[in-house]
C-alpha cells in the first residue's frame, strides 16, 4: 500500500512470495526502485511485475539522461499503465506507483490488473488488501503527518498479514521525501498485534 502526505509518500508491503501454498521467499522485497524518488509496490505475478518494473526503470533512466531532470511520478505511473494495458491479456500485475517530485510533491498512483491508472490519496493492493478495505476507509484522514502515515501503513499491513495466508513475513516501509528515500523493516514482535481470536 502507499499513502501520500504533505512532503512525500509512505509505501509499504509484506514480504511473502508463495508458489501454491509453499512460501518460496519469506523475506521478499516488494518495494522496487524505478527512479531515485519513485518506488513501486508489486503484486500479482512476481515474474511479470519484475519484468515490467525493469523496463519502466530503464525508460525513466533514459528520460533522465535526455531531460537532465528527475522524472515525474505521473510519468512513471503512465509508463506502467502503458505496458500493463497493452499487454493486459498476458500479464497478471497489480502495481502501485508512488514517489515525490518537485512539481506535484508526493503522489500515489494505482495501476490494478487490466491497466487503468488513477491517482489516489492512498492505495491498497494485493490479495491481502481485501481484508482491510473497511479498516483503511474508517481510519484514513487527509492531512496526516509522516509518522501517522507510517503507523497507518504498519497497522493496515499487520491486519492483512494476520488474515491472508498469502501475506506475511516482515513489514517493509519506504518513506520518500525531498530528502531522499528512507527504508525501514519491522520484524517479529515489533509488528502490531490485534485481536487474535
Amino acid at each position, binding site marked *: 500500500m502507499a499513502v501520500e502526505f504533505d512532503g512525500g509518500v509512505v509505501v509499504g508491503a509484506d514480504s511473502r512470495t508463495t508458489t501454491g501454498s509453499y512460501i518460496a521467499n519469506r523475506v521478499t522485497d516488494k518495494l522496487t526502485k524505478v527512479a531515485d524518488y519513485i518506488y513501486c509496490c508489486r503484486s500479482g505475478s512476481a515474474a511479470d511485475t519484475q519484468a515490467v518494473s525493469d523496463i519502466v526503470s530503464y525508460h525513466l533512466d533514459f528520460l533522465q539522461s535526455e531531460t537532465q531532470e528527475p522524472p515525474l511520478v505521473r510519468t512513471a505511473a503512465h509508463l506502467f499503465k502503458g505496458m500493463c494495458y497493452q499487454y493486459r491479456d498476458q500479464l497478471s500485475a497489480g502495481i502501485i506507483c508512488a514517489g515525490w517530485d518537485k512539481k506535484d510533491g508526493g503522489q500515489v498512483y494505482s495501476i490494478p490488473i487490466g491497466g487503468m491508472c488513477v491517482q489516489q490519496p492512498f492505495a491498497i493492493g494485493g490479495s491481502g488488501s481485501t481484508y482491510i478495505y473497511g479498516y483503511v476507509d474508517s481510519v484514513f484522514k487527509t492531512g496526516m503527518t509522516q509518522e501517522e502515515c507510517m503507523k497507518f501503513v504498519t497497522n493496515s499491513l499487520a491486519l492483512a498479514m494476520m488474515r491472508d*495466508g498469502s501475506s506475511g513475513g516482515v513489514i517493509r516501509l519506504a518513506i520518500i521525501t525531498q530528502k531522499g528515500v528512507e527504508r525501514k523493516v519491522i520484524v517479529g514482535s515489533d509488528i502490531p498485534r490485534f485481536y487474535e481470536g
Partner: protein
Amino acid sequence: MSIMSYNGGDVIAMMGKNCVAIACDRRFGIQAQTVSTDFDKIFEMGPKLFVGLPGLATDTQTVAQRLKFRLNLYTLRENRAMKPKTFMSVVSNLLYEKRFGPYFIEPVVAGLDPKTNEPFICSLDLIGCPMVTDDFVVSGTASEQMYGMCESLWQPDLGPDDLFETISQALMNAVDRDATSGWGAKVYVIEADKVTIKTLKARMD
C-alpha cells in the same frame, strides 16, 4: 484446488524415551483466508491416547466424534482402556469403510500402552493404511517441510523436556514455510504419570 489443502493444517508425533509427544497448528482457514486461530486438531481418546486429524476441517470434527463413539462402546464392553495399537486398527477400519468416498483426513495416533506404558506412534492415509514407526510421523499441508525438520532434528531416546523442544521446533519452522498452516501451535507431551499441554507463541501470519 485440492480438498486436502482447502482448510490447511498439520500434525506431528514423535517418539521419546518412555514418552511420546504430539503437536498441531491451530489455524482454521478457508483457502487463503484465516477464519480462526483456536482450531485444534488433536483429540483425547483416552488418558494416555491422542489422535491428530489434519485435513478437511469438517471431517476432522466428524471423525473425532465417530472415533470417540466407537472407543466408548469398546470401553463399556471390554471394561478396560483401549491399547494404542488397537485404536490404530479402529481408525483404519473406520476409514476403509469409506474406501470409495473417503474422509479427507490423514490421522496421526500417539499414546502409551495403558498397562505397560510402552510408547506408540503411527500414521494412516485417508483410506486407512496404517504405518507404525519408531521415530516420528507427520501429516498435513506442510508434510514435506515437516519431514525435513524431523529428519534433521530428531534423535532417539529424548527425555520429555528435550522431546518437547524438538517437536516444537520441528512443527514451528515447518509451518512457517506454509501459507495455509500455523497461526499458533499446541504440544502434548504424554508420559506415564502425566500429560503436559503447552500452547506455543507462534507467528500469526
